[in-house]
């Protein structure tokens, strides 16, 4: 079970409170986590990744275990602590004014 913490606006959109819990089949990667997130919460499609290119939106960041994983390959394995659910995978709206 993977724990994902969404930014407040996306929690509102997905109608969830607190963390989201996702079951992943196979290796835990950014791609598999986001695929599972969008399957469970279809209204989030396009909000974290572009609909077509599947690339991370430029003002969205991925943090885990005190690291910025935003520029890692979407197919790189996430840290074990994320895969095991002991640490959350953080989706962050970047500080960019507004």
């Amino acid at each position, binding site marked *: 079970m993977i724990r994902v913490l969404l930014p407040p*606006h996306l929690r509102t*959109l997905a109608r969830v409170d607190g963390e989201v819990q996702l079951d992943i089949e196979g290796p835990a990667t950014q791609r598999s986590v986001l695929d599972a997130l969008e399957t469970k919460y279809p*209204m989030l*499609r*396009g*909000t974290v990744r572009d609909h077509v290119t599947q690339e991370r939106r430029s003002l969205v960041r991925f943090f885990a275990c005190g690291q910025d994983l935003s520029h890692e390959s979407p197919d790189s394995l996430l840290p074990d602590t994320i895969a095991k659910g002991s640490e959350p995978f953080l989706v962050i709206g970047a500080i*960019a004014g*507004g």
Partner: protein
Amino acid sequence: MSGIRVLVGTRKGAFILTSDGTRKRWKVSSPHFAGWEIYHMKGSPVDPNRIYASQTSGWFGQIIQRSDDGGKTWNAPGSSPEELKSPDGSPKGESNKFVYDTSRETGKPFTTHQWYDGTQHPWEFKRVWHLEPSPDDPDTVYAGVEDAALFRTTDGGKSWHELPGLRGSDTGPKWQPGAGGMCLHTILLDPKNPQRMFIAISAAGAFRTDDGGKTWHPINRGLHSEYIPDPAAEVGHCVHRIAMHPSRPNTLFMQKHWDVMRTDDAGDSWREVSDNLPSDFGFPIDVHAHEPETIYVVPIKSDSEHYPPSGRLRVYRSRTGGNEWEALTKGLPQRNCYVNVLRDAMSVDSLDPCGIYFGTTGGQVYASTDAGDNWKPIVRDLPAVLSVEVQTLQ
């Protein structure tokens, strides 16, 4: 008894203002979609409780929202709790998907337009500026988007598809973004001819289709724009807004980057009707609900000074379809006022006398219940107002 519902889109959420037919006391809703930019909201003429909203954010992109109860509750179409439980599933997660049509079958869509530096630049979807529900089908809505293109849904917003003939017209590579981006901001559906539509793009100009959106051609003859190399070019004009009275769909009124214009032949030729305005720069333009020759603009000082001339917020009214303008000032601030009124931020109701409404970048929404003679703020401390639409409820 009749009532009025004012749909206000702001930089930080949507607000719904309601009143009975007297238009004296207004109830202001709590913010919907708090923190998001709401470029536009508009109700279906067939079912006024069906309202569509464009919710957008630089962080999280474009969301389409729909209410079926007059704005009390909202869902991303196809993603309501009921639909998510459906085992067979209608299209899910598609309501926010605006993908340009690049298929060979549907024409010859261009993939580039002119960029600020004169080079060609690929089309990139950014947001929906304007939603125009069909006059006879609550599930059909047109969406004007940035980068400029026209999309349509026929399933209540669950999925959107481009009408590629517009970008595929042979002028696409000459379109260019204005300061606010390359947006399709005006969509007018001819109430007498379902095959005819008008749209406007900043900065490309106005376009018309006579075959239901399959093919389009520019309708910019008579426009004169000093900010493009050929001031009378076929395209490249920064049209800010076009308005139509439903009884006279061949007559259109235009507020251009500079100049207020008018056509009486469905855009085949335009003539200037700015005359005695203190400035012919501005954004919105609208038509009285019952007098097709009575029109309204809000003059703005210049293209860089986006506030009223002399710090006096004045709506100008012409009862002659242009050229003879009178300042409407009663109830509007007449000193130290430096707000702007954006292109989609003016609307009218259809009561008698006609009500006129507009919102400012300072967060005020002003209303007149006597066709513009007197004004009052019906709310005054909202975030910057992007759009105002009025529904007259029976």
